[in-house]
């Protein structure tokens, strides 16, 4: 009789196993929000995956151009890390005290991007952007770091307006420029070297550096935001980025450190 009751109780307990009925509300892992420039998305994703494992958290990444990211964090007042492709986006945030801590992790280099092996033999010169034989595209200076730096470089050369007029379109970010080259919609774009190192891009484009006297090099700096709810994870993120392993990840994607 006792055995029978025990069996029944066991069946009852098994039936009452709450794991059988998952709650619709989902899990409650701590979330870290990273505003990542599209240019540095790949290394950020790799580091985020490592941090997620080591700190049992979820790293949510908003990836876009630096301007949009800046606006997004300003509007939402949320997030832990802001990582623009151009460090100039950090300045206003530093002044406002929204960025409370920073960590430099390397450099990003801009240049000309053409088709693989440069079949049209496009010279690595700014004048190529005005050559009517080449279809070109540049990034909009309104929203992105590559757009902002492109405008500055072309303005220095005195050809920005002409180039903007000639451009087939103004891209929101570097990814749209990548898409334009790989789809061969255009023959020439101004973009980051790192875009060539994005998965699947290496054999689909060729990087031609700016002339040495006009080399465009931007320091990559991550900023810890005032709104951060998990500063310990942010700190871990920062420190990992400057470890040899973290540096190797950045180098792998075409950054220098």
């Amino acid at each position, binding site marked *: *009789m006792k055995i*029978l009751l025990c*069996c*029944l109780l066991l*069946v*009852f307990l098994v*039936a009452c196993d709450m794991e*059988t*009925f*998952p709650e*619709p*509300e*989902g*899990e*409650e892992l701590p*979330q870290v*929000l990273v505003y990542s420039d599209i240019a540095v998305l790949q290394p950020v994703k790799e580091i985020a995956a490592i941090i997620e494992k080591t700190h049992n958290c979820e790293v*949510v*990444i*908003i990836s*876009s151009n630096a301007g*949009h990211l800046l*606006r*997004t*964090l*300003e*509007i*939402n007042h*949320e*997030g832990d890390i802001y990582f623009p492709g151009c460090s100039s986006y950090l300045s206003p945030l530093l002044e406002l005290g929204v960025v409370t801590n920073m960590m430099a992790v390397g450099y990003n280099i801009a240049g000309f991007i053409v088709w693989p092996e440069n079949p049209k033999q496009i010279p690595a010169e700014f004048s190529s952007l005005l050559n009517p034989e080449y279809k070109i595209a540049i990034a*909009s200076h*309104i*929203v992105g770091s590559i757009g902002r730096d492109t405008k500055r470089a072309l303005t220095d050369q005195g050809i920005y307006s002409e180039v*903007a*007029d000639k451009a087939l*379109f*103004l*891209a*929101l970010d570097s990814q*749209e420029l990548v898409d334009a080259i790989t789809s061969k919609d255009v023959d020439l774009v101004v973009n980051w070297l790192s875009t060539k190192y994005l998965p699947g891009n290496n054999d689909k484009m060729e990087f031609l550096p700016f002339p040495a006297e006009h080399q465009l090099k931007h320091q990559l700096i991550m900023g810890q935001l005032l709104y951060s709810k998990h500063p310990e994870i942010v700190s871990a993120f920062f420190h990992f980025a400057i470890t040899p392993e973290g540096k190797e990840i950045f180098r792998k994607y075409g950054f220098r450190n």
Partner: protein
Amino acid sequence: MLQGFNSDIIRKLILLITLFVITFVGFHLGQNMLQQRQQYLHELLNNENVRLELVHIAQKKALAMNMKFAIMGNSASLEELNFHRTKMLSIRYELEKVIKVIEQGGTVRINNLKNINTGSAYVVTKTYHKYGVDRINTVIFEFKARLAALTDVVHRLRSIVEEKLVLAEEGITQDTLVKIVELENFQKVSNPLFTSILNDSRMLLDQSYLELARIRQIDKDFRYTYKKYELILKITFFTGFLLTAVLVLKSSKKILQQMVHGQLKLDKSERHYRRLIENMSDIISIVDVSGVILYASPSIEKVLGLQSKDILGHNIGELVHPDELGHSMDLSVVYEHQLETDSPLEYHVVGADGDYRTLEVNIQKFQNDDNSDGFIFTGRDISLRKFAEEERYRLQMVIEQAPICVVITDINGVIEYVNPAFEQVSGYSYSDAVGQNPRILKSNETPNEIFTELWQTVTAGKVWSGEIINKKKNGELYTESIIVVPIKGSNGEVTRYAAITEDISELIFEKQRAECANLAKSKFLSQMSHELRTPLNAINGFSQLMLKSKKNPLTEKQQNMTKQINTAGQHLLELINEVLDLARIEAGEVVMSMQPLQLSEPIEDCMALIQSLAEEKNITLKNECSERLPEVVADETKFRQILLNLLSNAVKYNKSDGSVILRTETMDTGFLRFSVIDDGIGIALEKQAELFVPFTRAIENPDSIEGSGIGMTIAKQLVENHGGEIGFSSALNKGSTFWFTLPFLDKNG
């Protein structure tokens, strides 16, 4: 037992009902839980549908903004421009409200919606509940950022359009064209923003669809899983219920069988114990706390002669001797006393015949079913045992207090017990002697052959007796007369030895002294007899010569006087001869000439010699000896002397007209027994012990019959010198029978 059965069944039924109630309540609760959860999931689905509608609205608003943006660029006047701008900002405002509700939950009232069919405007109020944990929605984050960016974009567009309209109105064609190009470029640059906004709205839509699908899947999984477990539970509980019911029935049946079996077993057990108690020799009695007898085993009749039914209801104190308890017993006190002494009690209990028996009583306390105390008396008749114990005590006292020494050894000769006399004689204390071998007394003065004979005898289970010279603890030697008796166990085997010893050192010393004195006396007598006989022979010889002398015949008076001298001399000579014989015998100077002897002639000669004496008293002599007597080994002269002595005594101490009969009898022991039977005066009982004592007469008036009193002493000595025995039986005035035995010759061996 029936009560036990009922309680067990009731317990199982309660369990069954409990199981049923648990099952019923469990299913009821389960159904409620299912309904509540399904309702919850349904609400979630409705909520998500609201979100979906809100996302749709957001999408419509985004499209509307995009259209307004394009329209703004084509505005033909400033009024139109401001109108579209205001409209667009209004749309943006509503879109922000919608996005806020989607993000945080809440109620939103949306204006300016148009019915597709009728084209009329309507207002919608939607309420969305934010549920679950607060998770980051990056789409909304970016959506909001883009809406914020839209403000600048709209502001810039408005500036360019205003400048274009002003220039166009002023008729400055070239500048107007430049503005138009700028406007086109701006719109081209701004298009990706609207594209992103539309993408965001589409992504929100995708989120809602995914969430809807997820919740539907959870609902589906839940219902499926619940139905599955509900089925399993139903089957399990139904099976369990049935099994329990079957078990209850089976166990009830089993219990019933066990109860019947148990009852039979109990009956059997009771019969068994009743038989046991009724056949016990001990008395078993149950009494209540006041001493009233409730039960008495039938053995009480055997022990006390009382019928058990007759004493039921009586107080047990009535049976006990008044001197011990009186007529009432406080059993608790008696019980406690027994516990304190830790030994059974003894009472003298009266039987039916009024005699008292000694009972050994054990009392045990127990509790009745009603928790009252009761007592079980176990009584054993130990009267015989007590008697035996007393007897043994007496014997023990005899041994303890006897002047003779008692030594008990085990089969190996190790001393187990010595009595105080032993301690006194040997000087060894009890503790000195016990555990030792009797060799501690050995003096080396006794030949080893004696000890060998002793052990051979006793180990053969026979009694050995003899004398041994031992040594005391202080080294002094002493002679002991010892009888060693093997003590046999119940199975006939010798288990130990008992030695009864007596210190005869003094006795031997006295005997030796007496023997020396006797020897001296015999020598004296022998010498004196010789010295007496020489002159007496002269007297007798010369008196006979005087009587027979014809040359000098005596006068009659002289003859009479000489006859008296001769008669007295003869008597004196006989007396001296007898004394001399006795002296020789006692001195060990008698030489026995043992040889095979035909008895008929010596017997006839003796009968003839006595015949004349018998005739004087008119006594009849009868020879009833067998005609074929065996030869005996004897000294003929001594045989004749023995037989003549007995025959002459039989005649001498007979009455007139009496009779004397001589008989022989062959005995199995190898002896021939001679009996001389007379019907004479007999011997008084008190005189019989002195018969063989020298110089004593066993008759009342010794002077009436002539005799020296040493004839029987000589006869005894002579018989014993032949290896035979002599004895008699006699009754005063009825006659006597004297007998003696001689070994006859065994021709076969």
